[in-house]
């Protein structure tokens, strides 16, 4: 279902430019731009019935049954009473209608909350909540400004427009707009002008096309249904031809007692054709679709109900938001995962530190949490467990003090006081974590001005003069500040990636700390500066920074020059905690042969780091290819190179290859997607990527994420799953066969467009390996059995045709035909589809290999379908000819002949019912009480209904409606009848048993093995799960700049950054000043030191798109920009 109703954006003519005037409603309305209302529902109360019926009859199966119904009312053709079709059709239509109504009603509710939130008086003068606002419109209060800008598009990184104000034109670029969904930081309000609303917003435009998702089984079913149609026509043609031949040789003679209405053989054959279409229609099972829906719905509820997928921390249960895709979960071959917030918690923790060679560890075991009560400014959410560190601080150890001083000074964090509470706005969560750590240990960063940094050191306020910020960039992997202390001492404080810093130390001492723990280590160093040298350097720095050419290089040289001969202070270890069980989940999924691609907007280092820490990349992967090129040709070459290496190793290490040692990791930078996805290189890219065990793509835009997914879908014909938590994952989630949203406190956008949602990444293994596998198994078993029972039922008519002059006589009683699918066989097979398990969930997780048959579609395919049909063919032969031979010329014990048509019908249908029941019992591997009830109940129901329908009483009421009166009573008391039933059942089922048993012995499947093992262990619970030990990399993985972006140094020192009065803490909270110019541009601008609160995560591209931020709540909370 189109969730965002993008369809309604269809414009009559293509918009080339849009013009909007501030506060001029009439002018703006004249263009009929989209309003902010987003309609997502299909029906209303009045249109429901006609629309829904219309829609249902568009389904080919339902339309087919409607045609059948028409055929049945033609007397010359009608071989069955109309009710045999009407009853099932009505039932199916009503069940589907109820389901549709419930589904759609849910949407209507959602819409109403949407309306509520959009009428929230955040921005009354603008009437609609803000979508995109001009940021520097402080002076826009007068209604004269007019904006000309580009038409709505989905490019987040680009915006072109002009502002005409007071006759002057101002260019507008990407920096001047706020995108829908972003959060304002560092200011409480700003002015804005809405440019795009509702479906035209960049967010909505970026949502990707939402298409109706169908499972591969659905697609297969469509093919099969067509095939069945063809087969039906084929059978009917055979029978019609048979009728023609029969008429020619025999039928004319029958005229003596059966006068034919029409003497033309051809015409009579033609009618016979249609009569048989009616009789054999049950090969296309009408109740199949509705049963499939019911099974999927049931299996979806299991997901909702699963306590093991319930996250206690957030109180969120897993949710199957789409109830039609379950079995696809059992066939996933590619998982595309977002990184931050999906694999990680997006919470940075100050985890360990090493000061002057002494390590302080945040190990939870038998350590008391450090009590920070001495410090009134401490952040209560910060936790640290090593009391030694606090002791060291209190003892005024010099190194420890300079360690924290550095942390308090050397950063680009902004401080803000709100409600008497110090709030840090950090462009990267790890910076925030470090500054908070310093704060709690008594070095509180209070305030920043462009020229100074205010710090409260152990209760004493000190102001450092900020002389320079040597900003971070990707090459330098470090940042430094040069400050003058209140005492007038000049110092350079530097923090950066360990490998980088070690090279610049004075004594080059290398300290191996926190190695192999997968933590991001950051080394801190300092250097006292000479006043003269610095002023000279400052001079050169100024020159360089104003140079027009080669500014970057010159600056870098200067930085290099001053950042050397550093003195080591210590090191910190920051952890962006992986979510619980991520690496174990990844390992499980890998065992299940599911390929995991991480698509992240983050930088290469970050991606690589996370790859290692969650076991995606491992040390034994001898090479990790990094594809990062600037031109299409280079990309092509690099891809070829990877491929070539791969091929080379394949030749050299054939033996090793089979031991799985040469697993490749591949890192791809997003920039190449622009080329790689261009078309010519698609295949090359894909081929290379699929060769590698692990693929990590970084700096990928939302649309590129979707493109990658589409690419794999297109060329690999594999079932894909995308998992993510942010708005930037929406397009990917929609593009993949299955979209999974991680629901946290943030980013409901991903959840809203997902098919399944839960709170933690680790639930993915349960979703796939347990629920997915079971759903697929159940659906396939259901389909196989369903086809079997219907084909068997129908084929008997085919054989009978040869004995009734191809006259379209039915074998069974019409009541039986009407009820067979609905009553006698519906529940047992539904029970199978809802309850069957081959092995329990514990064993499913113990043997992830059990997942593989699903990926290869082994349980239900065209081949399996043909097998089903052949099996049915055999069964129907038995079911017709055994009763045929048994009743031929036979008489009952009281001498009455029991070879009459009604007795034969009863005998055959009893044989059929019993046989399909026994077959079901054979297929069912998990007999719960419900299954027993369904199976025995259905059998009982069959006899009950049969006896009732053939009872005297009903016949007395409606004589001609119940012609079978007395048949059951007369024939079911015969021993031979029961012996025949037994014979057919045994004859139908035993060959299957032999076949299965022999295959199990000679060629056991993984399921057989595990089941046998389980059986041997007498259904004991599986052994305690072997906790996969997480292999940490042996080399140090340094990850400074977890998500740092270049340019912050400039920002915090720029004059644009507002000045505000130095807040005095005692004076309570001072309202924050205006900070319209400061936009945190890091991936995330909030952080939590303790994990109680998550970052409002976002950012799609690390550089410019960070303002693209997840919407906060389920109702697309509009972030209002309040006008003054």
């Amino acid at each position, binding site marked *: 279902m189109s969730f965002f109703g993008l369809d309604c954006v269809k414009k009559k003519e293509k918009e080339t430019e849009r013009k909007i005037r501030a506060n001029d409603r009439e002018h703006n309305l004249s263009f009929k731009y989209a309003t902010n209302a987003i309609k997502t529902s299909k029906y209303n109360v009045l249109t429901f019935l006609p629309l829904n019926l219309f829609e249902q009859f568009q389904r080919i199966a339902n339309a087919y049954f409607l045609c059948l119904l028409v055929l049945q009312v033609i007397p010359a053709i009608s071989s069955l009473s109309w009710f045999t079709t009407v009853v099932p059709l009505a039932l199916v239509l009503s069940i589907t209608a109820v389901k549709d109504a419930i589904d759609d009603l849910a949407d209507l509710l959602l819409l109403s909350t949407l309306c509520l939130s959009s009428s929230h008086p955040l921005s009354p003068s603008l009437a609609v909540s803000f979508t995109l606002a001009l940021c520097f419109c402080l002076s826009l209060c007068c209604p004269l400004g007019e904006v000309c800008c580009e038409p709505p598009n989905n490019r987040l990184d680009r915006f072109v427009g002009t502002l005409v104000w007071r006759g002057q034109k101002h260019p507008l670029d990407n920096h001047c707009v706020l995108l829908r969904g972003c959060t304002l930081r560092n200011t409480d309000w700003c002015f804005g002008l809405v440019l795009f609303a509702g479906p035209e917003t960049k967010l909505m435009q970026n949502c990707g096309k939402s298409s109706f998702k169908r499972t591969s089984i659905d697609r297969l079913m469509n093919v099969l249904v067509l095939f069945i149609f063809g087969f039906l026509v084929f059978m009917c043609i055979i029978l019609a031809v048979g009728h023609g031949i029969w008429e020619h040789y025999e039928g004319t003679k029958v005229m003596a007692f*059966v006068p034919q209405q029409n003497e033309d053989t051809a015409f009579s054959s033609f009618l016979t054709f249609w009569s048989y279409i009616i009789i054999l229609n049950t090969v296309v099972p009408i109740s199949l679709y509705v049963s499939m829906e019911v099974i999927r719905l049931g299996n979806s509820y*299991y997901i909702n109900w699963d306590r093991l997928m319930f996250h206690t921390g957030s109180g969120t249960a897993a949710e199957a938001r789409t109830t039609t895709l379950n079995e696809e979960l059992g066939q996933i071959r590619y998982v595309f995962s977002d990184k931050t917030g999906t694999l990680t918690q997006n919470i940075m923790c100050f985890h360990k530190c090493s000061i002057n060679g002494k390590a302080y560890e945040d190990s939870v075991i038998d350590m008391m949490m450090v009590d920070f009560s001495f410090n009134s400014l401490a952040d209560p959410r910060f936790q640290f467990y090593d009391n030694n560190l606090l002791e060291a601080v209190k003892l005024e150890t010099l190194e420890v003090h300079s360690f924290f001083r550095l942390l308090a000074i050397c950063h680009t964090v902004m401080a803000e006081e709100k409600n008497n509470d110090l709030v840090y706005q950090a462009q990267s969560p790890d910076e925030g974590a470090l500054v908070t750590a310093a704060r709690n240990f008594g070095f509180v960063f209070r305030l920043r001005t462009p020229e100074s940094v205010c710090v409260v050191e152990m209760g004493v306020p000190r102001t450092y003069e900020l002389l320079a910020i040597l900003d971070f960039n990707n090459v330098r992997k470090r940042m430094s500040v040069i400050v003058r202390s209140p005492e007038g001492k000049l110092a350079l404080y530097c923090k950066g990636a360990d490998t980088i810093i070690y090279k610049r130390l004075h004594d080059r001492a290398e300290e191996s700390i926190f190695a192999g723990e997968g933590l991001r280590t950051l080394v801190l160093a300092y250097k006292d500066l000479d006043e003269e040298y610095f002023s000279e350097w400052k001079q050169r720095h100024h020159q360089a920074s104003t140079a027009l050419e080669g500014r970057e290089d010159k600056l870098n040289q200067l930085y290099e020059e001053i950042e050397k001969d550093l003195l080591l202070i210590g090191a910190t270890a920051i952890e962006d905690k992986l979510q619980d069980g991520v690496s174990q989940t990844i390992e499980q999924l890998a065992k299940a042969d599911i390929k995991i691609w991480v698509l992240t907007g983050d930088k290469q280092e970050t991606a690589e780091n996370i790859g290692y820490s969650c076991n995606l990349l491992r040390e034994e992967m001898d090479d990790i290819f990094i594809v990062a090129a600037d031109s299409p040709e280079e990309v092509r070459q690099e891809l070829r190179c990877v491929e070539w290496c791969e091929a080379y190793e394949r030749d050299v290490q054939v033996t090793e290859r089979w031991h799985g040692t040469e697993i490749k990791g591949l890192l791809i930078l997003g920039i190449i997607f622009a080329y790689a996805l261009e078309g010519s290189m698609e295949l090359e890219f894909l081929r290379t990527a699929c060769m590698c065990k692990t693929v990590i793509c970084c700096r990928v835009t939302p649309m590129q994420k979707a493109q990658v997914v589409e690419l794999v879908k297109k060329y690999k014909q594999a079932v894909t799953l995308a998992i993510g938590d942010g708005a930037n994952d929406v397009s990917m989630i929609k593009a993949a066969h299955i979209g999974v949203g991680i629901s946290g406190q943030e980013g409901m956008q991903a959840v809203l467009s997902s098919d399944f949602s839960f709170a933690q990444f680790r639930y993915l293994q349960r979703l796939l390996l347990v629920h997915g596998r079971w759903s697929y198994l159940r659906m396939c078993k259901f389909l196989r059995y369903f086809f079997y029972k219907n084909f068997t039922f129908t084929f008997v008519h085919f054989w009978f045709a040869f004995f*009734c002059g191809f006259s379209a006589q039915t074998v069974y009683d019409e009541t039986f035909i009407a009820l067979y699918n609905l009553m006698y066989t519906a529940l047992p097979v539904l029970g199978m589809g809802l309850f069957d398990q081959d092995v329990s969930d514990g064993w499913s997780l113990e043997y992830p290999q059990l997942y593989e048959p699903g990926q290869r579609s082994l349980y239900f395919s065209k081949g399996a379908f043909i097998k089903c049909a052949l099996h049915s063919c055999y069964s129907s032969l038995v079911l017709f000819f055994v009763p045929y031979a048994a009743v031929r010329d036979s008489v*009952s014990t009281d*001498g009455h002949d029991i070879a009459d048509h009604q007795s034969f019908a009863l005998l055959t249908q009893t044989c059929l019912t019993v046989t399909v029941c026994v077959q079901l019992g054979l297929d069912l591997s998990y007999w719960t009480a419900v299954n027993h009830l369904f199976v025995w109940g259905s059998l009982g129901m069959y006899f009950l209904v049969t006896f009732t329908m053939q009872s005297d009483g009903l016949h007395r009421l409606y004589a001609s409606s119940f012609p079978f009166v*007395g048949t059951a009573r007369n024939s079911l008391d015969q021993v031979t009848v029961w*012996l025949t039933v037994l014979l057919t059942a045994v004859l139908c089922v035993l060959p299957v048993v032999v076949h299965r048993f022999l295959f199990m012995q000679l060629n056991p499947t993984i399921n057989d093995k595990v089941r046998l093992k389980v059986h041997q262990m007498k259904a004991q619970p599986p052994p305690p799960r072997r906790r996969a030990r997480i292999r940490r990399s042996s080399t140090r993985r340094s990850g400074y700049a977890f998500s740092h972006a270049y340019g912050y140094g400039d920002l915090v020192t720029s004059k644009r950054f507002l000045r505000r009065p130095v807040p005095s803490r005692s004076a309570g909270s001072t309202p924050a000043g205006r900070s319209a110019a400061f936009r945190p541009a890091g991936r995330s601008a909030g952080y939590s030191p303790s994990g109680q609160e998550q970052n409002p995560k976002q950012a799609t591209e690390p550089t410019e798109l960070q303002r693209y931020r997840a919407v906060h709540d389920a109702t697309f909370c509009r972030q209002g920009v309040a006008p003054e």
Partner: protein
Amino acid sequence: MKAGPSRTNRPDNTAFTQQRLPAWQPILSAGIVIPGFTLIGLAFIGVGVALFVTSQKITDLEVRGKRDTHAVLFFFQGPVFFYYGLTSYYQNFRTYGVSKDGYQLSGDTYYFNVRAWYSCAPYQYDSNNNPIVPCGSIANSMFSDTFQLYQVVNGMKKQVPLDGKGIAWWTDYNIKYSNPALVNGSFANAFSGTVKPVNWSKPVYELDPTDQANNGFLNQNFLVWMRQAALPKFQKLYGRIAEGDYAQGLPAGNYTLLINYSYPVISFGGTKKVVLSNVSWMGGKNQFLGIAYLVIGSLCIVMAMVMLIIYAKYKFTDDDEDM
């Protein structure tokens, strides 16, 4: 565990919602399959032998062609049933099978005249547009041969009584079919305004003038005929030999069958036959079931052995840890 909203959202911990319902999980292990097959095989062979022997004991005598004297060589254990059989006769033809009017046959005179049931055509009305009762092809084509069986005792023909009553199903006689109520004390009046089926020699109310309980729609030969056969080769009960001297069976000797031929079968290439048979606990003579049970039983035993050999030779063990 902390209380609060997270607890209220937590799904119920029931065996059903957590998919942990206790269940019986049978698997096709050798320990079940091989003994199972052996047992089934033995049971089938037992049943097969019983059926076969019983079936062999049942006497039946088939009379084809026009020879009218037959020798019964041994005592024919009674009660003996007298059947007539037809071949190539498609009573199961669809348009034939629907060609009757259930309302008429349940004695509702309203439907004698009213066109409620088109399926009776072309035997709905005669050429003078008089309604035919009983209408339709089935009734019209009712078997009309009559039989008399005589035992030749010392050259004398002694009639063997063929009881034509009690040959129809109890439900057909008592429930499904009824005669219309008498009109002015006359059964025939109830059918006034209607005509007999085209092929019939006498109207329905004269099928058995001697016995009103066997007359009209309740005539048992009529009822037997109306219960159409499933297959084109069929036999129908004509009478029982259960009275008088022959209640215990037919003594050995010579018998003469007098057949009043009136039913044409040559035209459609069919044949007629007469069958005398007695029954057992398994009904009439039927070799098929006994043989089938014997064959299937033996096959089961054979398969059990084959599976045993294969199991012993190839059985997989779960030693391989790499599964």
